[in-house]
């Protein structure tokens, strides 16, 4: 849910509550005022009628309301003395409305000079409670809608404006890639809170970038530093190997084998960090068809030895700007992968199309783990000699050139598709 809608939700819920309470209070205080004013009017009327009745006795015989709004009838003295003045709501048939309507009636008692006692009833039309509540609710509903609507509009306009730096920051952060972007420039704003947030984020990212760079640099430096001692150790063992015989020689050869494995691992790590540090020079136009054909030829003896059949389907020429050394590494790694994880008598199918190529090979009967296969040091088989970096390097090379390297298992073939973005 958007922040904007959050505030609106809270606002509308609390407004319902506040407005309801307000409506109740308003209703009662208004009714109170209405009764007060009507009763005052009735009181005044009473005095006028009694005054007039003392002068004009004909009034005393007006027993019914008829056209006027009062009625007088004589009552026994005892009753009059016991009774008290009283206001109450009653209903009366109204000619105009053709219905019984609520009226306010004052019942009072008075005596004339000749000790006669009378009961006087005065009525006046009354505000209808039901109607009033209805009107009030109606008005309230409109008020509520109006308040929410204006709150929505104002919120939309104002919040959007106020939160603009936030959205800008969000946008910039989304575009930011650790390892690709060397700096992070937060959007400028005058709002203190946002400026603080931007500065904090910028600080944090700056520290991250530094750590990331150091990390990458460290791997590269470490790999570099390892090359010379490895070289010395291998050469020393080679010299020793020349003077050894039999079992000793085999042990030495074995030791060299492990040192060479370490060297390969080291070289791959160095290559990976160099790719990630973007240390490869400008690209040149490369003929991928020719390179693929060349590499298949380089592998020809091995392919023949392992009885693997290779088919190259050239649907289109693929000429793109690409770093030549990296293109070779990419093709070598993919081809090697297709050979090593193949079985005797298997096949490899290479399809070169417009914008990419695909290398598909027979091999294990189940698909590889697409999640992990491009990760460093992931090995599908327990092959002790693979570095587990070949596909990670291939992926890094693809990424450096904004290309896509994907895997799928289709028709018992493991397919690696390399696709350059157009």
């Amino acid at each position, binding site marked *: 849910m958007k922040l904007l809608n959050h505030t609106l939700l809270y606002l509308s819920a609390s407004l319902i509550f506040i407005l309801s309470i307000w409506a109740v209070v308003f209703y009662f205080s208004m009714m109170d005022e209405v009764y007060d004013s009507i009763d005052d009017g009735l009181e005044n009327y009473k005095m006028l009628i009694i005054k007039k009745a003392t002068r004009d006795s004909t009034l005393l015989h007006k027993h019914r309301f008829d056209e006027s709004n009062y009625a007088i009838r004589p009552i026994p003295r005892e009753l009059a003395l016991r009774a008290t003045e009283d206001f109450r709501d009653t209903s009366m048939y109204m000619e105009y409305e053709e219905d019984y309507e609520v009226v306010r009636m004052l019942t009072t008692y008075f005596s004339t000079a000749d000790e006669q006692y009378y009961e006087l009833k005065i009525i006046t039309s009354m505000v209808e409670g039901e109607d009033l509540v209805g009107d009030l609710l109606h008005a309230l509903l409109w008020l509520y809608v109006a308040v929410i609507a204006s709150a929505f509009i104002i919120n939309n306009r104002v919040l959007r404006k106020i939160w603009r730096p936030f959205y800008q920051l969000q946008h910039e952060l989304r575009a930011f890639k650790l390892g690709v972007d060397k700096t992070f420039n937060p959007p400028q704003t005058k709002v203190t809170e946002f400026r603080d947030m931007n500065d904090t984020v910028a600080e944090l990212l700056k520290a991250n970038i530094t750590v990331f760079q150091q990390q990458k640099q460290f791997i590269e430096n470490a790999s570099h530093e390892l090359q010379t001692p*490895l*070289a010395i150790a291998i050469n020393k063992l*080679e010299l020793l190997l020349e003077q050894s015989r039999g079992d000793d020689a085999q042990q*030495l050869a074995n030791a060299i084998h492990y040192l*060479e494995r370490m060297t390969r691992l080291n*070289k791959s790590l*160095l290559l990976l960090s160099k790719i990630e540090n973007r240390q490869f020079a400008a690209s040149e136009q490369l003929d991928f068809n020719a390179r693929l054909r060349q590499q298949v030829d380089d592998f020809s003896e*091995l392919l023949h030895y392992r009885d693997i059949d290779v088919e190259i389907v050239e649907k289109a020429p693929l000429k793109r700007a690409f770093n030549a050394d990296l293109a070779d590494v990419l093709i*070598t790694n993919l081809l090697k992968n297709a050979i*090593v994880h193949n079985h005797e008598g298997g096949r490899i199918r290479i399809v070169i199309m417009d914008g990419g190529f695909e290398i598909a090979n027979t091999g294990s009967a189940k698909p590889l783990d697409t999640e992990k296969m491009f990760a460093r040091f992931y090995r599908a088989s327990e092959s002790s000699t693979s570095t587990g970096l070949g596909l990670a390097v291939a992926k890094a090379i693809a990424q450096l050139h904004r290309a896509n390297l994907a895997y799928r298992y289709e028709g018992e073939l493991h397919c690696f598709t390399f696709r350059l973005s157009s």
Partner: protein
Amino acid sequence: MGFFWASAFLQIFAVSLFFKNYLEMKLLIVEDEKGLRDNIAQFLNKEQYIVEVAPDFQTATEKISLYDYDCILLDVGLPDGNGLNLLRTLKSKQKRDNVIVISAKDSLDDKLEGLELGADDYLTKPFHLAELNARIKAVIRRKALGGGNVVRLNNMELDFDARMLSVAGTDVHLNRKEFDILSFFVVNKNRLIYKSALAEHVWGDHMDNADNFDFIYSQIKNLRKKLKSHGANLEIQAIYGVGYKLTV
């Protein structure tokens, strides 16, 4: 006058007696890492070269200004200077010494710069000593006057420019890799060749998987058969689990 000719003749005779295989090939190793320097020197001494060493830029500069070398192995990263500057000095003095640049950096820039400055070859650490040997012999052979880049061994003749083999005067067809294998054996004759040194020399980065060494063995078996059928007088000996040796 007669004395001069006689003494010159004697000198040449003495020298050629002393260096049966090569005529006074002088090498300089410029390398700051003692371990590596010693390894290379020890290995190359067996090849009957005269090997001199320079542990730093300063010593190397003095040596190259005083003497001529047939081949200089030049490390790029020296503690007191960049090895490539030494190469510049050599070229500015119009010296014809062969130079093989050695670097720990597998960096294209170093390689290109080195070759542009006139280095004859480039080698990245770590390398196999047999590979170094092959490279040294290749650069020396290329610059040898009148030799025509040909190596003779018993009744075989390997022409490195034409990449041709002839046995007892008859041409033998070898494919690219068979020639590479044979030539690697020939330049490293009588020396033990560790199996992956051969694999790297012939197949480069395409063959770094030890699973494939059976495959190399089968390639050598084919080559042996071919050489034998043409009556080549040499023996490639397989040392189980270790490598090969060409004995003459």
